[in-house]
């Protein structure tokens, strides 16, 4: 068993990067991810890693340098948040389209305006369509474990795609929690040696990255990109099973909590799932058959598997820590697509919560469950999309 410590999410992820010892990290500070790369730069300074740390002038440059280093044939990582991710936007698509396995902890934070530094999923959801794999973590332990597994997933020869490991800004990144580390040697062995695919630094075999592809082949390239995403779930399952063998900590594409015999269900990601589980326990004691489904893998989204896991419930509340203004919450849209595959067609509501780090408190979960009980009885949804925890 590894060492048990009390650390923040950032500290744990920085340590994971130290254990993995990437070839190149290019980074630019942004709250709340600053602390993560700052700690990692300390490891570089102290000679604990061999990583070439490139301190760039913006996040656009950070991702650009990561793309260059990955194309050159290196194992590459960076970390960012919020506006930093937004500034990387065009480069995110290039990293994915070029099939470069860059690993990036994303410390989820709200987007401006108004300016806010606290946790919500607006940044990650904005990058939903970039072609990156996205894993969401409930706590520091999951963020640490996902960071280690992310290298194996991204670098798998069936995948070769960049990956974001998401955790909630401040709530996870800056809160001290119990974390069980994996021993350095075990991490090194688990992650293995980096295998470069078409490295630019292989001078014997010259090649070009980033060609112009117009109407004759672009559509085919996107079809191929769609195809590789369909291979990701199986790889995540294999890597997670191997990780469970090593650590005893089990991970799947999503977590089910008291869902097997549930009549109503809440779907929520990341740290809010923890609070929700506590309230679910209280309602279970009162005899309410409620369960939770917590997606871990948001991209690609496991539509079929989630449809199967939720088909027996009568009503579902999807809690989104981000909004698509004028549309539905992003997680709701995915769950609604799952419901379309079911014969049972449970009622689904969408609750927008916790924007800009607004606390998600037990009374919000209670409000949602009380309403779910009513919907399950009547079969009627009064308001499909609603903000909760809002002063009005």
């Amino acid at each position, binding site marked *: 068993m590894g060492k048990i410590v009390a650390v923040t999410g950032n500290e744990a992820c920085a340590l994971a990067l130290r254990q993995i010892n990437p070839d190149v990290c290019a980074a630019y500070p942004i709250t709340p991810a600053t602390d993560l790369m700052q700690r990692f730069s300390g490891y570089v300074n102290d000679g604990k890693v061999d990583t070439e740390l490139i301190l760039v002038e913006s996040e656009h440059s950070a991702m650009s340098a990561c793309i260059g280093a990955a194309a050159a044939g290196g194992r590459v990582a960076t970390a960012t948040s919020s506006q930093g991710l937004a500034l990387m936007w065009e480069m995110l698509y290039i990293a994915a*389209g*070029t*099939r*470069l396995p860059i690993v990036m902890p994303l410390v989820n934070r709200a987007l401006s305006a108004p300016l806010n530094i606290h946790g919500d999923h607006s940044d990650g959801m904005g990058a939903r369509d970039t072609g990156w794999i996205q894993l969401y973590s409930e706590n520091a332990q999951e963020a640490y474990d996902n960071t280690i597994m992310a290298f194996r997933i991204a670098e798998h020869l069936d995948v*070769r795609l960049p990956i974001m490991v998401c955790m909630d800004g401040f709530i996870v990144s800056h809160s001290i929690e119990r974390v069980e580390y994996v021993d350095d040697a075990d991490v090194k062995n688990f992650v293995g040696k980096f295998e470069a*695919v*078409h490295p630019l630094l292989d001078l014997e*075999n*010259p*090649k*070009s*990255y*980033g*060609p112009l*592809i117009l109407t*004759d*082949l672009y*559509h*085919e*390239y996107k*079809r*191929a990109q769609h*195809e590789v995403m369909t291979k990701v779930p199986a790889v995540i399952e294999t890597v997670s099973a191997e990780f469970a063998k090593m650590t005893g900590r089990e991970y799947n594409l999503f977590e089910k909590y008291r869902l097997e015999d549930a009549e109503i269900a809440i779907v929520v990601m990341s740290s809010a799932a923890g609070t929700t589980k506590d309230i679910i326990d209280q309602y279970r004691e009162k005899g309410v058959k409620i369960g939770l489904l917590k997606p871990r893998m948001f991209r690609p989204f496991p539509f079929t598997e989630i449809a199967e896991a939720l088909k027996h419930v009568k009503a579902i509340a999807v809690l989104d820590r981000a909004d698509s203004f004028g549309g539905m919450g992003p997680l709701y849209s995915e769950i609604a697509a799952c419901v379309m595959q079911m014969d049972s067609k449970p009622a689904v509501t969408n609750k927008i919560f916790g924007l800009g780090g607004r606390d998600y408190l037990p009374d919000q979960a209670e409000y949602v469950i009380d309403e779910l009980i009513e919907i399950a009885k009547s079969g009627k949804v009064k308001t499909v999309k609603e903000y909760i925890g809002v002063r009005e």
Partner: protein
Amino acid sequence: MSKKFWEELPQGSVVLEAGSSAKFKTGSWRSMRPRWIEENCIQCMFCWMYCPDMSVKVTEEGKRADFDFEYCKGCGICALECPGKKGNKAIVMEGEGN
């Protein structure tokens, strides 16, 4: 390029063949055409150096030869940079088809 199916494409659109840009002939883009006036040419090779493609041919002796119009987009950089001889340009741009 032959029309490929999506299953056959190289990962990440990496071009694995070196020097394949020679197959990409851009001469048909041209609306302006450079004309080389040999008597004004001092063989400074600026045109060869500035050409963004490979339209300026060089002989085995390292002397400037005439244009290779298969690669010339008619951008005019060579004509702009040409110092010429005694104020007379060795490259002038003319309308294509004139």
